[in-house]
């Protein structure tokens, strides 16, 4: 049974004061104005002055597409903030298909293309958090997110993970510290209202939350009236037979803001991501975007849109399968080196998705000290676990290693050196 969510609870005063640009509003009006209406209200430059006549993109599979004529003009011109319209439509269809969304979904929810998914996440946190607000976060947490939260003077309430992601009982327990579900649901201040997590191949633990556990977590979110920030850039980088079940797919209440990214699957440099969620919240992000980046690069969007058109669903799915196979192989390679060099010195779980191996060194109190002092000397750099903790004064016994880019030789060399570093420390 779905509840009706009062979204004002999740919007801070500053965000609530954002207003629509009158020019953007008029531009929207123009699209439905009678033919013969003359529009002198625009503020855009004349596309005929732009220097480009054509862009051509070639793909590794031999496919080619061009942007010319009207298409290149559009790719160079200002766009509506929610996104290049053909791409927005494609992405809505994509989301509907991938997450099994029903026919009423797009009445309550909307989608916005963002300059990388992280820009939308940043704007969502800036939209919702006020000074002193608690926010529930998976721990360890991607440092990019904690770097957004900290200057806002919000307090991270860390929820521990096991190999399957955040632990529902830990989540419930943390929330109960603030009161009963009835009490917490109705308060706007001094209680946590947001839950931030990675659904698939979490950064840094590599954990994927199984469907059953997701349902438990979602139910807790309903009980305590939370919005779930589903940050899922590795959704297609899994090593299972079927795609994971997302929070978005089970969101009967419209309390999920989902952040998707093309960075790990098509291109990181084009800066194309998208956020899907309740209209009331996505519109706040839209207004902030309107005042800052205005919209994601139209050229980037046109390229992604053309590529999706060129490939169609089948080739796109094939591409995802290729990536999954590729990274699985890289993962296995790293696991082999880990088994060879680090057995007895360190522990780890097998990542079921993503890019990272999360390595625990039981014999060491603080890996940050270890790598800062010994890393360069021994010739190996990994990211110390401390960087992924909510609190500055905490220590961590973990390292994050990434298997995506380094060559098998480098991985092996690196782990051999790490082993030496650890042995030297323990001795």
């Amino acid at each position, binding site marked *: 049974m779905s509840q009706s969510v009062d979204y004002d609870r999740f919007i801070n005063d500053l965000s609530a004061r954002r207003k629509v640009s009158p020019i953007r509003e008029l531009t929207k009006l123009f699209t439905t104005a009678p033919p013969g209406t003359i529009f002198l209200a625009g503020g855009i430059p004349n596309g005929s002055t732009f220097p480009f006549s054509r862009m051509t993109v070639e793909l590794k599979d031999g496919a080619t597409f061009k942007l010319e004529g009207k298409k290149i003009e559009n*790719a160079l011109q200002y766009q509506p903030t929610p996104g290049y319209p053909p791409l927005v439509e494609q992405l809505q269809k994509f989301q509907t298909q991938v997450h099994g969304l029903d026919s009423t979904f797009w009445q309550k929810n909307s989608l916005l293309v963002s300059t990388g998914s*992280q820009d939308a996440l940043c704007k969502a946190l800036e939209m919702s958090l006020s000074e002193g607000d608690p926010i529930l976060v998976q721990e360890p947490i991607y440092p990019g997110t904690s*770097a957004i939260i900290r200057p806002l003077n919000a307090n991270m309430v860390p929820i521990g993970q096991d190999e399957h992601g955040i632990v529902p009982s830990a989540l419930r327990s943390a929330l109960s510290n603030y009161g009963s579900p009835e009490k917490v649901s109705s308060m706007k201040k001094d209680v946590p209202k947001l839950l931030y997590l990675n659904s698939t191949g979490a950064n840094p633990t590599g954990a994927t939350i199984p469907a059953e556990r997701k349902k438990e977590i979602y139910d807790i979110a309903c009980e305590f009236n939370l919005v779930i920030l589903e940050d899922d850039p590795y959704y297609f980088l899994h090593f299972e037979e079927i795609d994971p079940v997302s929070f978005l797919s089970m969101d009967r209440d419209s309390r999920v803001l989902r952040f998707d990214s093309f960075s790990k699957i098509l291109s*990181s*440099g084009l*800066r194309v991501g998208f956020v899907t969620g309740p209209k009331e919240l996505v519109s706040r992000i839209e207004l902030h975007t309107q*005042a800052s980046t205005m919209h994601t*690069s139209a050229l980037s969007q046109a390229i992604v849109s053309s590529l999706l058109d060129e490939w169609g669903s089948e080739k796109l799915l094939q591409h995802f399968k290729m990536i999954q196979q590729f990274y699985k192989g890289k993962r296995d390679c790293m696991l082999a080196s880990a088994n060879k060099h680090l057995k007895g010195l360190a522990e780890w779980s097998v990542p079921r998705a993503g890019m990272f191996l999360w390595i625990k060194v039981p014999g060491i109190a603080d890996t940050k000290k270890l790598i800062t002092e010994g890393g360069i000397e021994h010739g190996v*750099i990994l990211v110390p676990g401390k960087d992924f903790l909510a609190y500055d004064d905490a220590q961590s016994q973990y390292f994050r290693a990434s*298997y995506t880019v380094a060559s098998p030789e480098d991985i092996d060399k690196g782990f051999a050196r790490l082993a030496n570093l650890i042995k030297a420390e323990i001795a």
Partner: protein
Amino acid sequence: MNELALERKPSILRELMKNHATASKNVVFIGEGLPHPETIPFSEVSFTLKDGTKKVFTGSELVTAINYLPTQGNPKLVQKLREFMDRFHAPLRWEDRDVIATAGSQDGLSKVIEMSLQKGDAIVVADPVYSGLASNVRPYKAQLISAQYRKNGLDTVEMKDKLTAIWSSRSKDVKIPKILYINPVANNPSGHVISDEQKREIYEIACEFNLLVLEDDPYYFLGFQDELPKSFLSMDTENRVVRFDSFSKIFGGGLRAGWMTGPKEIVRIVEMHMQVSVLHASSLTQAIVLQILEEQGWDGFLDYTKNVKEFYRKRRDQMVALADKYLTGLAEWDVPEGGMFLWVKVKGVSDVLAMVMERGLKKDVMLIPGHAFMSDPTKPCPYIRLSYSLVPMEDVEKAMQRLAELIKEEQAIESQK
């Protein structure tokens, strides 16, 4: 800087990327979570310009155009932009400044506002002011202290008087502004260009009242004078100018190609905010801009911008001629000195809101009421902004006829009140 800005710390992983770039080749980095180039489906991206020149990105150039970059920007482009600033502005005290590529110049502006403003702060602007600035400062309930554009330029006496009054006020409610926002070449919406002389006056005021000068200059190359204006940056002896440049009106707004030049400390804060939001401006956009600048050289670039300028100047002339023909006696305007807008004051009508938004739509003409550009948008406003950038001149003529009728009808309504 507000507290939020002071609390920003560098993003660990982005800083790690910087370290990687400068570390010894002997060190093995297995920390960074970067996608592997083999998983990226692109093999070649190329663009052709209208002048026939073509550029193909493959191999390592494609990698740079398609993959993650440092937040500050494509290093070669950042260097090119420094040279660009040297060529056109010759800023003093380069060692105290830096440059950062942004996803459109407005993102830089937005981040400087967010770095600086606290709720209720005051900010000095010239009226009428670009509505994008208002979108950024209104959520902070900012007070806009405005100086008006008049026939001879910006009323700097008014600016100085208002600032003096604020500084000598004993009232707690009066906030002392820290920022001056100005769009000095072809001000959007009024089309005014501030003279070099007046810029110096304004700069002195900024020094006297300790203001950061936000020089928002997307139409810098679209001023209709023969000489390029002297920028605030070029006269910035005290390192208090943050300048926002843009390729939007020259290469295409869709690219989101802008950059910011300013004091190192301010660039650093903006960099840290970008590290956790956009990460960096589109790599492909940056690669393209770099290529064009390298290909054209400074002379080529100037020639190119001159053509763009001529395009808009011609359209300005045409629109002003049509305004002369249809609106004389009904409205007043200053001839735009650059850019793409005509700022028209309707005579005999105190507030054009209903005229534009209701009756104008019924007459099938869409204009922007000036309220969006006034420091107090709730006050009655007789101005409208017309754009001469896009619409074919035959349609502009029709629109002018309709506007003339609209004004006459409106004046009749007003005189009956």
